[in-house]
Every structure is written in C-alpha cells, then in structure tokens.
C-alpha cells in the first residue's frame, strides 16, 4: 500500500506541472495586466509599461514561468501585487476558510447524499423513495447562488435565526458554536446540488448492487435485511460511489466561489476570482496550484480509500 500511495503521489507531479502551464498559458491569453489593475483609473500606457517593468513582467513568458517554478519549488510563491503580501500567507489563510466551508459541505453532501440514496434504493417506489427523489430533483435544479440569496432573506434578514454572512462574529465570536452558526447556511447552499447528484448516483449504484449474486448469497445465509443493505450492498456500492465523491469534491470546491461571494466567506474561491479580475498572476498561480494540489491529493486519498475498500484493485 505504501508503494501504491507513493506511486500515485509521484504521478500527481506531471498533473500539477501541467496545471501550472495551463494557468500560465491562460494568463498569457487574458488581455489586461496587473499594472492596469494597480494603477486603476490612472493607468496610462506609459505608467503601465513602467510598472510592468518594475514588477518584472516585461520578461519573456517562458522565462517568467521558469523563474516562478524555480522559486515555488523552493517554497517561495512570490508576492501578490494586488494584496501586497506574500502569496503563500494569503492563500493559506484563505484556503483554511474554504476548507472549513467546502469540507463541511462535502461531508454534508456525502453523508446526506449516500444516506438518501440508500434509503431511496431500499424503499424503491415507496413513499420515502418518491419524497427523496423529488427533493433531490428540486435540489439539483436550483442555482446555488439563487438558493443562497433566498435563504439569507428568509433565515437571516426576516427570521434572524442565523447571521447573514461571514465566518465568525465580528466581535465576541471565534469559537466553535459561532463558526457553526455562520456555517449552516453557506454549507447547506453549497451542498445541495452535490447532495442531489450523490443521492441519485447512490440510489442507482445500490439498485445495481442489490441485484448481484452476492446479495442473494447474503440473504440465503440468513443475514438480516438491514445488514444486507447497510453492510453488504452499501459496501459494494461504495466502489462506484467513491470515485464520484472525488469528482463532486471538485464541484463543491468550485461551487464555493459563488457561495463565498453570496455569504461573504473569506475563502480562496473568491480570492482566485479576484486574482483573475486583477490579473494578479502570482496569486492566481499560487492559489490554483494549491487548490489543484489539494484536489489531486484528495483524489489520491479517494483512490487509496478505493484500494482499501476494494482488494481487487492492484496496488
């Protein structure tokens, strides 16, 4: 297993390298430059050119890429010119917030989605199945940003049960209950679509598995039905659910951009959007590489979990 993990980790390196190239290429294609962003209304071509020279952006693209890559490999992600601070500091700070949000959203959608799918499959065509199927359909049909705006209106502005936005109360907060209070709405809004997708998938995966011969074997040896479903069937269904969890993790991470905007969450998603808008190449690169690395690592974790779950996978 150790060798397998190592091998998967090594195979992530070209993917990450590729991502740095994609980011770089895209940034090269985007019109506008950081100097314009820094100078704002006062950006004249002369000023822009001078500032770009000061920022070292006049060098050839390839050269800049390798300088950046070299620095990054030594742990130096450079300095964000739009935020005036080291990229790594900012990214790590913001990434933690996103991890809390996306992590919660992901746990929420995985647990609820799988549970809903299992119940739905176990009660196929029953009342519970119909209710779940329909709820899930509604869930995957609402734009998350719209849902976010609506629940803010309802629960924060009108009912005042929950805070409108932010991660902690500005004053006197900072503890876990405070965080949870702020987390409820954004995490829910974030998880809704993924929950739906996972629930649908889990349902069909469970239905598929429940028809397998080994389920008949379990029943034939007298295993109670609850255990057949939650043990034998779910475990086997997880083999096809797990990879989708990996993909959904990416969606949740992406969806966090909207949610972070609507709920004013101090996360990395919004930071990256801002970085694109402000042409903050270093910030964007640092952020994307970190997010992508996290995503790739997560997928490796999924693969490892898959290998642990399914002994047939060659490790």
């Amino acid at each position, binding site marked *: 297993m150790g*060798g397998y993990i*190592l*091998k998967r980790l*090594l195979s992530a390196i070209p993917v990450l390298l590729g991502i740095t190239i994609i980011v770089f290429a895209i940034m090269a294609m985007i019109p506008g430059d950081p100097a314009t962003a820094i100078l704002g209304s006062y950006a004249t071509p002369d000023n822009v050119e001078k500032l770009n020279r000061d920022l070292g952006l006049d060098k050839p693209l390839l050269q800049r890429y390798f300088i950046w890559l070299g620095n990054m490999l030594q742990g130096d992600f450079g300095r964000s010119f739009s935020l005036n601070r080291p990229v790594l500091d900012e990214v790590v700070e913001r990434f933690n917030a996103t991890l809390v949000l996306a992590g919660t959203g992901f746990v929420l959608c995985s647990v609820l989605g799988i549970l809903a799918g299992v119940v739905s499959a176990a009660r196929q065509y029953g009342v519970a199945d119909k209710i779940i199927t329909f709820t899930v359909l509604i869930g995957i049909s609402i734009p998350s940003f719209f849902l976010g705006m609506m629940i803010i209106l309802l629960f924060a502005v009108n009912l005042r049960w929950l805070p409108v936005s932010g991660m902690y109360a500005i004053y006197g907060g900072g503890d876990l209950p405070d965080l949870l209070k702020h987390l409820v709405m954004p995490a829910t809004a974030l998880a809704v679509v993924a929950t739906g997708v996972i629930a649908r998938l889990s349902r069909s995966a469970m239905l598929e598995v429940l028809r397998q011969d080994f389920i008949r074997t379990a029943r034939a040896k007298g295993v109670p039905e609850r255990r057949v479903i939650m043990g034998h069937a779910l475990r086997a269904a997880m083999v096809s659910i797990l990879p989708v969890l990996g993909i959904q993790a990416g969606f949740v991470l992406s969806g966090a951009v909207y949610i972070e905007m609507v709920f004013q969450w101090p996360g990395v998603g919004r930071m990256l959007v801002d970085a694109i808008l402000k042409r903050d190449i270093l910030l964007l690169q640092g952020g994307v590489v970190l997010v992508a690395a996290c995503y790739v690592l997560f997928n490796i974790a999924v693969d490892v979990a898959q290998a642990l779950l399914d002994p047939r996978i060659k490790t």
Partner: protein
Amino acid sequence: MQALKVTDLSKTFDLGKPLFGTARPGVRAVRPMSFSVARGETLGIVGESGCGKSTLARMLVGLMAPSTGHIEIAGKALDNADPAAFGRLIQYVFQDPISSLNPRKTVRQIMETPLKRLYGMNQAERNKRIAEIFDSVNLREEFLGRYPHEFSGGQAQRIGIARALAAAPEIMVLDEPVSALDVSVQAQVLNLLADLRRDFGLTYLFISHDLAVVEAVSDRVMVLYFGTVVEIGRAEQIFNAPKHPYTRLLADSAPVVGRPLAAPEQVDSELPDPLNPPPGCAFARRCSRATAICRDQEPPLTEKGKDQFAACHHPIAD
C-alpha cells in the same frame, strides 16, 4: 499439404516495470509451441482454464501479436501488417455468440461488413452471397433485418459462424463455440460445423474444455496445460490411451453415466503460480508419478505411440 504451420509460437505478457527494482519477467501465457494442421483436418485443442488456449487462438487470427515464433498459412508466412489479409485466410468464431455480434447492428449489416471490406463486393453480389451462406447454415433470410438480441444462443452462434464463413477463409478457429449452448442445441451446431467443413473443405481449430465434444468433432486432439502442449494425438486414441498423466486425469474426471463417483487420483488441484513458475514439468506437483527429474527438467514433446506425442518423463505405458 499443411493448412497451418506454427513454429515456436509463444506469448509473454509484460507486467509493467515496478517503481523500484528491475522489471519482472512477465507471465508466459503460451510457451514456445510448434504444431501443424493438415488441410481439411480438425485439430481439437483442449485444456482447463488458464492453459493458454484462448491466447493461442487470438494469436492465430492476428488479434494479438505473438512474442516469438511465426505462423504459416497455406505455405505462406503471415505478417500482421494487413489485417484484411488475415481475415481472408483465417476466421474466428467466438465463445459468447451474443456478445460477438454488435448489438446496434442488424444481422444484414454484420454480414455485409466482411464481404465489403475483404472482397469489395457490390450490393447485388453481397445479397447473393449472403443468401448462399444463410442457406448453408440453416438460417432464414427474414432474420437479416433483426438485431442480435432477438436471437437465441443457438441462432446467434449460427450467425457468428455465417459471418466467419462470409470471409471464405481457409481456416476457422472455433473458440468454445458450443459451451454457452444447451445440449440439445449444442448438437445442432456441432453437426452444422461438421457439414460445413465437408462442403467447403475447411480446416478447423476447435477449442473446448469439454473432452467429449472435442473428441466427437476432431481428427486430432492437442492437450494444453499451463501454456504448454502436453500431449497430441489421434482423437480416438488420446482419451482411450493417454500417455500423459494429465490427459488421463482429464479423461477420468469427466462425469460419465455409470461410472462411480470418485475424485480422480491427483495430489493437488491448483495450477502453478504463473508469476513464479516452478522448474521442470508444470504438472509435477499434481502428478502421482512425478520423480525428481520431473521437478527439475521440462520434458520435451516426443513420440510415445503411433501419431501420439507426449511431454512426459514417465509416460503411461499401454
């Protein structure tokens, strides 16, 4: 004249280089083997799962490149450059009749492909030829508009045979053509195959795990074990008077009405580990006659009786 001549044919599957250390030697699915089949002859190939019979078949029809050796058909060496050349000389009938037919195509489309691609026939010629073939395999022409899933296993296998016939090959490789069929239908298909061979002068390589079926259709039978030919001989003799202990084990294991139930004599029933094959005779561990030399030296295939060759240090005497 030999229809097929195989020399030193072998296949080794590479295992990919591990992260550390040197590359592993690979799995030898088929060890170097040589044999030939006369025109119009049926060579039965029998063996249990993992003996390499499907790998051998796929190499013969060019679906898999051999690691060593070469194949000669009708006196001409074959190379894999032109798949169409293979197609006109040798065809394949698959074990699972349904899955060997494209589920999204009508029988007519399936039948026309080889005629178009291998012989470049026009529509009229194709229709005529399909009619002839369908007639010879006892299929009604009204089937042409239907899709494969609408057929029973026996009918589908006839369509598979008809498709192979459409290529008008010299040789047909039949890979377990009846093992997915019920006995009553199995006999129909086997009889059809026998008729076709007679009518078209075909040469068959008939692969099966069912000894009785192989015996019933073959002129000669080749027994494979762990990628190696262990015995080859005339069909009527090989199971009645096997020279190799493995052949005898096979013959004794087949359930026969009237024979009392008893596990045939063998030491172990497991195949050797293909990643780590033992030296010497692969069957030695299961063989009650094995001696030190068997675990040390691989026995060569030598003539042990009339037209009967076996690879054994201690062949069974008559």
